């Protein structure tokens, strides 16, 4: 239990950091802390393969991509308040109500969950077990994810080299927003 409390605190503080830090790099690193704590939580939930995947794919690949883009865009901390004046208090109030509601329902609802007495029986979550299920029962979903990833690769590449790659780079800073689109 004490371990869970520590993990939950790290996750929640990391999440608050993501939302409140002004600098995008700080927010991204805060999200890395949340993701690593989540990976440890997966281990406590008997999902060892997912924990490894979480560290490799999320904390590794996806966050590195984020940091690259943050450096590429060179965004600084200044960020004006939202246009809609009521948006910020409404968001905080609504989030508070929703979180309190879900947490209350999760604790108050005393209907027995299926087999709540023998939950600890699960000894699994290894790559072999999850992989066997993925390649037998969920093989269609697995193949579709492959197609989706291929589509994502093609889309990302075509977005990255939009326009004529041989043309000189347009000047940054005073780029006119009304520039005609050049379809590559």
């Amino acid at each position, binding site marked *: 239990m004490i371990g869970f409390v520590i993990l*939950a605190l790290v*996750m*929640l503080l990391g*999440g608050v950091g*993501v*939302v409140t830090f002004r600098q995008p790099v700080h*927010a991204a690193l805060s*999200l890395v802390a949340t*993701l690593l704590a989540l990976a440890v*939580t997966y281990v*406590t*939930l*008997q999902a060892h*393969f*997912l924990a490894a*995947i979480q560290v490799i*794919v*999320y904390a590794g690949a*996806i966050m590195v*991509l*984020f940091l690259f*883009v*943050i450096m590429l*865009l060179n*965004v600084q901390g200044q*960020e004006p308040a*939202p246009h809609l004046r009521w*948006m*910020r208090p409404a*968001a905080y109030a609504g*989030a*508070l109500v929703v979180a309190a509601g*879900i*947490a209350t329902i*999760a604790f108050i609802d005393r209907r027995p*969950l*299926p*087999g*709540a007495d023998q*939950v600890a029986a*699960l000894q*699994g979550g290894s790559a072999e*077990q*999850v992989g066997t*299920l*993925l390649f037998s*029962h*969920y093989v269609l*979903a697995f193949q579709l*994810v492959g197609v*989706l*990833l291929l589509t*994502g690769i093609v*889309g*990302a590449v075509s977005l*990255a080299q*939009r326009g004529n790659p041989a043309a000189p780079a347009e000047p940054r*800073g005073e*780029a006119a927003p009304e520039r005609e*689109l050049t379809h590559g």
Partner: protein
Amino acid sequence: MVPTPYYIAVSALLMTIGSVGVLTRRSAIMVFLSVELMLNAANLAIVAFARQWSASGVEPALSGQAAVFIILAIAAAEVAVGLGILVAIFRNRVSTDVDELSEVRL
């Protein structure tokens, strides 16, 4: 062993923190980071429920973990395309303020 409602409560809190970020931040990259937070909150809830169902056999429990694996792959594809769009927008407008991006063009 920690009961499932505790995990669900943490997941709900993470989800709402992420939604606050989506609603209040104006930089598109911060909105993206908040969306990642929400995705992970959903994953935590799915894995916790998967363990809860493990009493009815190994397969229901591992089904939840397989679903989370597929969500991870989809999140990776989403981030790649989304950040590509972000870079393309920044190339044309030098700003990634979501309040100013009200046209459906780059």
